[in-house]
């Protein structure tokens, strides 16, 4: 089998394996999944606020993030999150659940490569860029704000 027929066969195989849903359907799925996760977060925020009415917004936001992250990691551990991600597409990875799922699934995936260079290093394969960029941006914003506030 020469290279060209092999490549054609490979492209055929990829097209057979990729889901056939039209782009309008996947947009709708992303909307539904994103809205569901955000509604869940809002529900937990209302519950927490009914118990602790004095909690400030930043702490409340952190608590919502923690709850959604915990749920996501548990779902990932039980292997249910794959199906949600397949359905929701961007609706599952744009909320904080995508960040948590990428850390948990990489940790589970690279467990067999050892504790230090397996879990420890490869855990951040997807989440690392987000953390690195996020910390860098926050430094830039903070320092720029500090310099402006001097004058």
């Amino acid at each position: 089998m020469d290279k060209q027929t092999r490549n054609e066969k490979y492209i055929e195989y990829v097209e057979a394996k990729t889901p056939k849903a039209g782009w309008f359907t996947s947009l709708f799925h992303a909307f539904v999944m994103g809205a569901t996760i955000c509604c869940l977060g809002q529900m937990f925020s209302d519950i927490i606020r009914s118990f602790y009415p004095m909690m400030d917004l930043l702490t409340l936001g952190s608590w919502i993030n923690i709850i959604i992250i915990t749920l996501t990691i548990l779902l990932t551990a039980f292997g249910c999150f794959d199906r949600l991600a397949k359905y929701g597409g961007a609706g599952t990875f744009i909320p904080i659940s995508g960040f948590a799922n990428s850390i948990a699934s990489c940790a589970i995936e690279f467990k067999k490569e050892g504790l230090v260079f397996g879990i420890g290093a490869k855990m951040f394969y997807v989440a690392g860029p987000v953390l690195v960029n996020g910390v860098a941006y926050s430094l830039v914003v903070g320092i720029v704000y500090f310099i402006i506030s001097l004058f």
Partner: protein
Amino acid sequence: MLEALFMYLKVILVGGTICMIAELIVIKTKITPARILVIFLMVGAILGGFGLYNYVVDFAGAGATLPIIGFGNALANGAIAAARVDGFFGALSGGLIATSAGIAVSIGLSYLVSFFVSSKTKND
């Protein structure tokens, strides 16, 4: 009661629309999800740095804080708020302090979970 329902409507609208925009970018340009996460984070940090995203957070609550844009906004806002109190040291530490709880829980719980769960090979 009606007010609470209206709030959830706003959450659905804002949260869903942000995810839909990301999905549109995925479909139309084939940019990988990790890059889109970083792009959205950058958008959030810029909007947060100018203090614009807080209006969206006031409007839509969890619909604005849960998407990764809200994470970028929290980083920028934390840095600004700490710089106001602690000066230069606050500018360095504030961003991570504001988001540290979420990051710590994701890392710690993932580490714990990975001891108990092994990856299975997919058979489809």
